[in-house]
């Protein structure tokens, strides 16, 4: 066990964990941020994606201790005082979730995409979502939400 300082959703936390503990377990079990989901634990599905310094990053394999220097934002950190960000709003408009288990990672990845580029190309959208799996078949609605964001100019 060692002590670890993490910056998550604008707050700084000190946690005691085994140094190899993957980030997702720290977020979910030590900080109570259960928005990021464990889908595979093998960096194959995207359910666990969080923002690390603004970039969509899997949290299921790499140790929390690798992220000491970074600013981490989880899905819980995307809305401020109950105000959802534009990606969350567009997803709601389009009804872009069924069970919702894949949603957290996809909303986070889409937020990162639009931070980089307000008018991403088709290829950029596909690249950003390539490693995100959804089994309910919400893909079309998610893509519709993204198209809405592009045409609204975010």
């Amino acid at each position, binding site marked *: 066990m060692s002590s670890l300082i993490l910056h998550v959703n604008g707050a700084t936390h000190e946690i005691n964990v085994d140094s190899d503990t993957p980030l997702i*377990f720290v977020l979910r*079990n030590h900080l109570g941020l259960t928005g990021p989901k464990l*889908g595979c634990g093998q960096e194959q599905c995207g359910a666990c994606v969080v923002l690390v310094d603004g970039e969509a990053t899997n949290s299921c394999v790499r140790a929390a201790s690798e992220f000491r220097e970074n600013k981490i934002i989880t899905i819980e950190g995307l809305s401020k005082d109950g105000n959802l960000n534009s990606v969350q709003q567009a997803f*709601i408009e389009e*009804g872009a979730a069924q069970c919702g*288990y*894949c949603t957290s990672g996809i909303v986070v990845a889409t937020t990162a995409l639009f931070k980089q580029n307000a008018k991403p190309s088709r290829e950029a959208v596909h690249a950003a979502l390539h490693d*995100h799996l959804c089994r*309910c078949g919400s893909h*079309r609605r998610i893509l519709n939400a993204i198209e809405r964001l592009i045409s609204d100019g975010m």
Partner: protein
Amino acid sequence: MGSHPSIDSHPNVDQWIEFVTDGRILLHTGKVDIGQRISTALALIAADEFDVDYERIDVKRTETDIDPNEGFTSGSMSMQHSGKAIRLASATAREFMLKLAAEKLDVDIKNLEVADGLIQSRETNVSITYWELMSDKEFNILVDEGVTVKSPDQYKFVGTRVLAKDMVNIMTGNLSYIHDMALTGMLHARLVRPPHYLATLKNLDDDLIAGLAKSNVSIVRDGSFVAVVAPDEYVATKAATQLAASAKWDLKDGLPTKELFSALTSNKRVSLPIAPGGAPVDKPVPPLGDLSEEASVSVSARFEKPYHMHGSIAPSAGCALFEKNKLTVWTHNQGVYPLRVAMAEALKMELDDIHVAFVPGSGCYGHNGADDAAYDAALVARAIPGKPILLKWTREDEHAWEPYGSAMVCELRASLDKDGRVVDWSHESYGDTHMGRPTPGRSGSPAEKLLSTHLQEKPLAWPIMPPTMGAHVGVHRNLEPLYNFPNPRLVKNLVRDLPLRVSALRTLGAFSNVSAIESFMDELAEAGNISPVEFRLNHLDNEKAIDVIRALDEKMVSEKAGTSNQVGAGIAFAQYKNSATYCAVGIEVEISDAAEVILHRAWIVADAGEVVDPDGLTAQLEGGLIQAASWTLLEQVTFDSGGITSRDWDSYPILRFNNIPKIETILMDRSGEPFLGAGEASSGPTGGAIINAIYNAIGLRLRRMPFNPDAIRSAAMN
């Protein structure tokens, strides 16, 4: 059974409706929300019957002893069961409250009207709310099956687009799934599974176990069932990996490796003819026989579909607490009551000593690992009394141990007369059971449908399911075509000695049967030199079927489907179970230079009876299409004698964001008509439409799924 099975077994209004909190109405249902938005649909129905805002309605998560027992949430039956029950119970409750209000306010009931729960007399100023009337009271009345319900012109909520229950929580990360449970003193558990179904545990590394004990990790072992338990989740995960690496197994003979599709049509089997109406009969199968004398052209074809995974994005999980000889279980399975019976038998406990509550999981699409994981958690909890145990399967556990959708073969033969009408039709389907759920009352003990009962010290025998004899249940779902064919020869073959564990996956046999029938219809149309649409219409007299096919055709013609270069389009149609939603699907594809099937556009036309939640219904139809396209193009469970080899998402690819068609869905307006189940309606037609579209694009008729680039290339070479 009367006309409403759910009401027959739960006749009291209080079993469905509860006024607990001021300003809110709580609905009780035995159907669970697994992402299909049943809660939203039920809330819409209740809102209209009560004349209250949709936002005031909450839908309780099902638990035993408290909520109605409506069996499993399956087979697209939720709206017929719970939807109807909630409508009648709400209308009965409203009428009762109006009477009560008339007495209290001393006014004529005829002059009462309700606005968002406020009952007011049109004549006087007096008013009272539902909640003032009902605070701390029960209804104590029976659901009146003859009660007047709202007519479609009075609907304010039914049929409108609303914010689905839980949607905001999903988007903000605040919906709590079973995986997110955190009970006081809770321990985390992970499994160490054998390499395959038949392997048994020889030994574990005792030194390792002793070492783990020092860091608070304990091991629960019962025969070949092994779980690792620790207060910290990651510690449990790591310990399970270490223990798995050191475990020694007796691999026995390994899994049977006979080529799957030849096993399906040559293994021992039970064969039964299907009678008109879609149910098998216990009679000898009529021989295939000669072609009809009127036959001028005859076609035959064989379709093959491998095992599919449910492939839930969350690996299954269960939570359990065993305390003072009572067991509480939290599960994301599709039926808390049937699971309770199965667990009582498996654990040799009394039903009354077990309480089972539903907590959301990820989408399951049928019988995935949820029931098994609940039982696993219960086994661990029983070994460590007084501590809540949250047991999670890993991705590998789910991929390798979930009960798959059965592999199937369909063999068809038919002839046309000189006018292009079908004069003989034979369709035989072969497959394993689709009935692996722990359902009480089916043959054998429901306990043997719980995976770990086969791994424990005194293992139960693996179930051998008898053929199901109901209409459209299992291999023969949608085997009987809706088309008018003279004396069709329809046969179900329930095949024995197949290698993998199977159960109910979305649509059961219908995906294979409809894909096969609808591809075959196109082949026949071509043989008769008739357009696929006309050929289908020539063999239908069901108006609703005709309507959806016509509407699809008009849409695709107006959008010039399949007319540009390199692109092909195909259609397919089915009425799910010949009794639920009518659905016609059109798909437009292009085959890339890399031999990939690119999905361009898709159209769905559905007649689902009265539509309560149009957005949710559309999402189900679209989701069903995307999932079925994934099955069709990419998916197959792979295995060898050493076990399942598709143990992660790389070895079991599914459709990704780069190949999602534009989808347009048209819902027929059928207000006031009965609800028709819709969650599974688009899957079968999607498989058929893709086969037909590929043929239209490149002239190859593919009949062995999946149609991945290898399959396309090898078909092109032959």
